[in-house]
C-alpha cells in the first residue's frame, strides 16, 4: 500500500498563542512537497507539531499516517510509525556517541529480540557516511557536540538514511549550508526518493529546490497554506519574491504570533 499522509485542519498553539490556524495537506508515497514562505509564518511550527514537540499544543485537527492517528501517539511512537523530522537545530548530547545513538534508534525501530548485529550496523553506517562524505570519526564523536552547522545537517540526513522512514520532514535543512554541503545533502535526499516515501521540505530559499525537484509547492503565511502549485511556483517566488502573493490575497503582515 502506498504511503498516505494527511494533515487535516491542524491548529496549534505555543504558550496559548495560535501559530497554526488550520493546515490542510495530503501527501502520498513518492511525492515531494515543498513548503515555502517568509520567516515567522509558522513553517517550523508545523514541522515540530507534526513530530509532537512538547512546547506546541495541538488544539484542533487530525493527522494520519496510513490511516493511523499520529496525534494520539507519543513522539517515539510517531518515529516508529515512520515519521522522521530532520531538525533545523538538532540537540547536542555530550557523552552519547553518534554510533551508540544511531544503533539505539535503529534497534528501537526493529524491536526487542530483533536488534541489528554490530557488524551489519557498522557496515551500514559507514556506507551511508561515505555517501554523505562524512569523516568516519564522526561515528565516535559525541552526538552533534562541536559539529558545525553543515555537519549537523549531514548527520540528520545520515539518521534519515539509516532509519528508512515513510514520511520525511526536512526543516530548513538548507540553512547554513555552503553549496557543496547543499549538493551532498540533496544527493542524500534524492537517493532516498522512492514510491514508498514522501518528503515534506520546509525552506524559505528556492535554491534547495534546484537540487531536489518538488512535485508540489505550498506557500505558508499567517499560519495557513495560502497558495499551492507545481514547481513553477517556486521559480516564480525565486524571481519575484512573496509580495505578489500578499497583494493577491490582501495580506499585509504575513507573520503569525510575532506580536511581542
Amino acid at each position, binding site marked *: 500500500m502506498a504511503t498516505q499522509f494527511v494533515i487535516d485542519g491542524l491548529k496549534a498553539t505555543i504558550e496559548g498563542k495560535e501559530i497554526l490556524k488550520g493546515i490542510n495537506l495530503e501527501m502520498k508515497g513518492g511525492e515531494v512537497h515543498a513548503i515555502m514562505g517568509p520567516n515567522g509564518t509558522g513553517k517550523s511550527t508545523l514541522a515540530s507539531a507534526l*513530530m*509532537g*514537540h*512538547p512546547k506546541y499544543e495541538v488544539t484542533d485537527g487530525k493527522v494520519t499516517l496510513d490511516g493511523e492517528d499520529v496525534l494520539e501517539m*507519543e*513522539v*517515539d511512537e*510517531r*518515529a*516508529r510509525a515512520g515519521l*522522521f*523530522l530532520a*531538525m533545523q537545530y*538538532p*540537540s547536542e*548530547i*555530550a*557523552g*552519547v556517541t553518534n554510533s*551508540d*545513538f544511531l544503533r*539505539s*534508534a535503529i534497534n*528501537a*525501530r526493529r524491536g526487542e529480540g530483533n536488534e541489528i548485529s554490530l557488524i551489519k550496523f557498522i557496515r551500514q553506517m559507514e556506507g551511508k557516511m561515505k555517501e554523505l562524505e562524512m569523516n568516519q570519526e564522526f561515528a565516535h564523536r*559525541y*552526538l552533534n557536540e562541536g559539529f558545525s552547522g553543515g555537519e549537523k545537517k549531514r548527520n540528520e540526513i545520515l*539518521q534519515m538514511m539509516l*532509519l528508512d522512514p515513510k514520511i520525511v520532514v526536512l526543516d530548513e535543512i538548507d540553512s547554513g549550508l555552503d553549496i557543496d554541503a547543499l549538493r551532498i545533502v540533496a544527493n542524500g535526499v534524492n537517493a532516498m526518493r522512492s514510491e514508498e516515501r514522501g518528503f515534506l521540505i520546509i525552506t524559505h530559499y528556492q535554491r534547495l529546490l534546484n537540487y531536489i525537484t518538488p512535485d508540489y509547492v505550498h506557500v505558508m503565511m499567517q499560519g495557513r497554506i495560502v497558495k499551492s502549485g507545481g514547481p513553477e511556483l517556486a521559480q516564480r517566488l525565486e524571481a519575484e519574491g512573496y509580495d505578489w502573493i500578499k497583494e493577491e490575497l490582501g495580506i499585509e503582515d504575513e507573520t503569525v504570533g510575532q506580536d511581542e
Partner: protein
Amino acid sequence: MSTEMIVPVDRETVAALSRSKNEPAWLAELRVQALEKAAELNLPIVEKTKIDRWNLQAYGTPTSVNAVTAWNEVPAFIREVFEDEAADLNNVVVQHNSGAVYSQLQEDLKQQGVIFTDLETAVREHEALVKEYLFQAVAYDEHRIAAIHAALWNGGVFLYVPKNVEVSVPLQALFGHDNASATFAPHVLIVADSNSRVNYVDNFISAEMSEASVINGVVEVFVKSGAQVNYASIHHMGAQAADISYRRAHVENDGRIEWVVGEMHNGNAVSETTSILKGNGSTSDAKIICVGNGEQKLNITTKAVHFGKSSDSQMITRAVMREQASSIINGITKIEKGATKANGEQTERVLMLSPKARGDANPILLIDEDDVTAGHAASAGQVNQEQVFYMMSRGIKREDAEKLIIRGFLDPVVTELPNEELQTLLRRYIERKLGQ
C-alpha cells in the same frame, strides 16, 4: 566534656595499636599526640552540610587481620571488584578492615626501585622516606577528623616512584570493610620523584552492614618537579557508612596531578580533593562524578590552590541525584598573590532526577593576583527535555532516552579511567545506583 565523648577512642587503644604494629617511637608518639589534639579541635568546616549531626562516633576498634599469601585467599567481597578474570593482579595492595592483608608488585618495577606496599609495612621498611612525607600535605592537627585519622590510620598504601622512572601499568589498591566494629582508616601516601610517572587506582568497597561505621581516609600525594601522577579512586560502600575522604596533592615545578574520582558511595560522604600547585608550571586536572540515591547527603569539594607562576588547574564535577539524595558541590579555585599567569577553570553540573533530589553547585573563585585568568560554570537542573525530544523523535523510548542522557552526562569522566576493567566496574556501580 571528657575526651572520650568527643573522640570515641581512648589513649590506651591507640598506644596498643602502635605496639601491635611495631611502630617506631616517633609514630607512636604522633598517634597519641593526634588523639589528644582531636579532643581540642573542631570538626572541619564543610560548606552547607551539618556534619555535626552525622553519626561520626562509630570508628570501631582496631582489629587484627590475617595476612594471606595468595590472591584467592583474599576475602571474596574484595576479589569481586575484579569480575574480569583478565584483571592485572600483579600490582595490587589489599586492606581488609583494620590492616593490610596482601601485597604484590611485579619484579621489574621492584628492580627499578619502585616501592608499592601498605603503609604499615613501609613505616618499618622505609622509615626515613615515610617520615619525611607523612602528614605533610594533610596536617594531623588540621581539624578533628584529620587528627582522629592520624591517631587511628591503618593499612593504606605507600607508593614511591624514583626519579625518571615511568610506571605504565596501573598500580591498584583495594580497601575492603566488612566488619563495622573494626576501625577502617586507610592512609595513602604517594611520592613521585622528579620526572617520574605513575598511574594509581584505589577502590573502597564494603559488604552491606546494618551497623553504622565511619570511614576516615586520607590521601597525600607529592608530585616532584616534572613528575606526573594519575590518581583514580572509586568509592562504593554501604549505606550505613559515613565516608570522609581528604585527598591532597602537592605539585612542584612542571609537575602534574590528574584526579579521577567516582563517588559511588551509598551512605553520607564528605569528599575533598585538593591540588596545591606550588611549583611554576605545575598543573592539575580533577574530574569527579557522583551518583546519589536514597537519603544520601553528599558534600563534594574540588579545590585548586595556585602558588606557582603559570600554573593551571582544571576541575569538572558532575553529579546525578535521584530519590531524596542531596548534594553540595563546591569548586574552589584559589590563586595566591604572585602566581602570575595562572589559569583556573572549573565546572560543576548537577542533574536532578526527582522532585525531592537536591543539588547545589557552588563555584568559588578566590583570587589575590591580577595577572591571571580564571573561569567557572555551574548548573543544577533536570534532564534536558529538548534532548529527550530529539532522541524520542528517532524512535527511542523516553525511558531509554533519559538513560542514555544520564549515562552520557557521566561518561566523559568514566572514560578517563586507565583501563577497561575499571571503566566497566564504574559503569556497573553507576547502573546500580541509578536503579537500572
